């Protein structure tokens, strides 16, 4: 399961190329989280989001991360992080243990995205999930024109190298929310340059122009 981590690293590296500042989805997540909340960051990577949340929002943060190197680095930096796998280890947590459970750019690399989302909604009052949007117009046109699996700035690997086994579009994800009785509290789409798409626009437009999305949900 080093793959989830590779995904996160890939996006992190890419994001830091764009600008030497927090990842856009991290900024959005930080805005969604209330100050002082208890937060679990699933797939926390090098702990960048936990640091951001702790510094800006004063959260009581915990992390789960699959890569041993990342976990050890996080703990050495003073973060509360355990080595674990979103597909397996979320089962350990009791109901409503956290105010927020965050899964940033990781759900597409899990084996059972639906179970993972159900677990997030079970163990926390609010779940926050960010993911790359497979409904973006460039992906659609790429598949249409070349007849091959799209490779874009957001999804650079060939299909056989990609850790992403469960890619979805914004509309797909909204449907999954319905399927697991999740009420969408906020949904924001944005592009690689961090420009946010107006959230009052239709989901169809977000699905066409958003390269990534962040959903804030709770169990309805």
């Amino acid at each position: 399961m080093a793959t989830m981590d590779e995904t996160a690293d890939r996006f992190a590296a890419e994001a830091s190329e764009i600008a030497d500042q927090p990842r856009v989805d991290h900024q959005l997540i930080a805005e969604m989280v209330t100050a002082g909340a208890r937060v679990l960051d699933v797939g926390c990577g090098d702990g960048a989001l936990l640091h951001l949340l702790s510094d800006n929002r004063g959260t009581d943060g915990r992390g789960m991360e699959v890569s041993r190197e990342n976990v050890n680095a996080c703990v050495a930096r003073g973060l509360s992080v355990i080595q674990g796998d979103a597909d397996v280890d979320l089962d350990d947590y009791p109901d409503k243990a956290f105010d927020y459970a965050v899964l940033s750019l990781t759900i597409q690399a899990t084996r059972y995205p639906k179970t993972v989302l159900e677990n997030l909604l079970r163990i926390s009052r609010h779940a926050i999930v960010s993911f790359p949007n497979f409904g973006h117009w460039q992906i659609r046109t790429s598949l249409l024109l070349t007849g091959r699996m799209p490779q874009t700035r957001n999804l650079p690997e060939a299909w056989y190298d990609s850790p992403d086994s469960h890619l979805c579009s914004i509309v797909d994800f909204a449907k999954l929310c319905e399927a697991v009785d999740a009420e969408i509290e906020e949904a924001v789409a944005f592009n690689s340059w961090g420009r946010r798409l107006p959230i009052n626009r239709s989901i169809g437009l977000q699905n066409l122009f958003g390269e990534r999305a962040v959903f804030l949900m709770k169990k309805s």
Partner: protein
Amino acid sequence: MNADTSPQLKAVDGTSLDEVNNPTSPVVEFTDGPGLKLEGGQVLSPFKIAYQSYGELNADKSNAILVCHALTGDQHCANVHPITGKPGWWELLIGPGRPIDTNRFFVICPNIIGGCMGSSGPASIDPATGKAYGIDFPVVTIRDMVEAQVHLIDYFGIDQLFAVVGGSMGGMQVLEWAACYGDRVFAAVPIATAAWHSSQNIAFHEVGRQAVMADPDWCNGDYLREGKVPRRGLAVARMAAHITYLSEEALQQKFGRNFQDRDDRSFSFDADFQVESYLRYQGSTFVDRFDANSYLYITRAMDYFDLAARYDDILADAFRGTKTRFCVVSFTSDWLYPTRENKEIVQALNAVAANVSFVEIESDKGHDAFLVNEPEFFATVGGFIQAAAKRRGIAEASN
């Protein structure tokens, strides 16, 4: 000290020492009060605790770290050992500027009850008879060790320990502290340990105990009164146990099939191989510093350890409502207390939404990895301690 009531402890330079009844460490004797109520039902009174301390307790007594030693360890964690002359067993972790910085923290390391380095144990003098307890000493448990430490912490007037840290059996004490006195432990670092002793671990201990008891010089436990020491039995116990502290890979790398002081087989039962010579050395030096009955008592205490048993076998209930911050550490090549068993502790802590970090350190050193130079391990513990100290509001080291 009367020679026939003390074990034949000898320093490497040949000078006689009696660390059992006249230790170089400070000793606190608990003569008044209710004594130490043991899990087995008996009361040990009076009793004494020998300890080493490093650094200074701050004004509000918030910077104390209790270090719990393992089976064959003792209180000399960060100073030269009075018998062996070797550096402290955690000297790399504890000291000025070390991950557990004694310029910042007040570190206390007591000898466990049942030990043989100054705390009450089977080799120490029973005040009622004026002779060594021997196997009349009551069987003690990990819980009893912790209760004795509570007396010591009260003696220092410390309400809450900043941290309790320990590996192996020391880790079991850390877990007991967190379970029984969670409000007195701000941070807990159980390392290479388990919440219960496995069948395999009990089996190894039984081999060790039988080796001791099979030695005629054990004299049914009365060897101190007989003026003897079951050296061979205890050495064999140590040799067998020492194998379990290493890993197959580490042994193979270190010794392979190399011969010791010869080029070929001797066609005898000499120590032809380096690994044999190494184990014999480990066995014989251990006997110089450890009491055989203590070894029986302490291994028994570990075998009896099953933290969940008091909570209807639900380990999570041992930690329910805990405010303590935990950092659990395991090592990849440790097959005595494998990652799986350490992770059970983490799962129990997660089940009560405790604040827990968990790292598995890559090492080929086996169980002993927590005692050797593993920079990643030190970085982890140091990082956790520093972050917790900041959260606790403990002042940084002044120099």
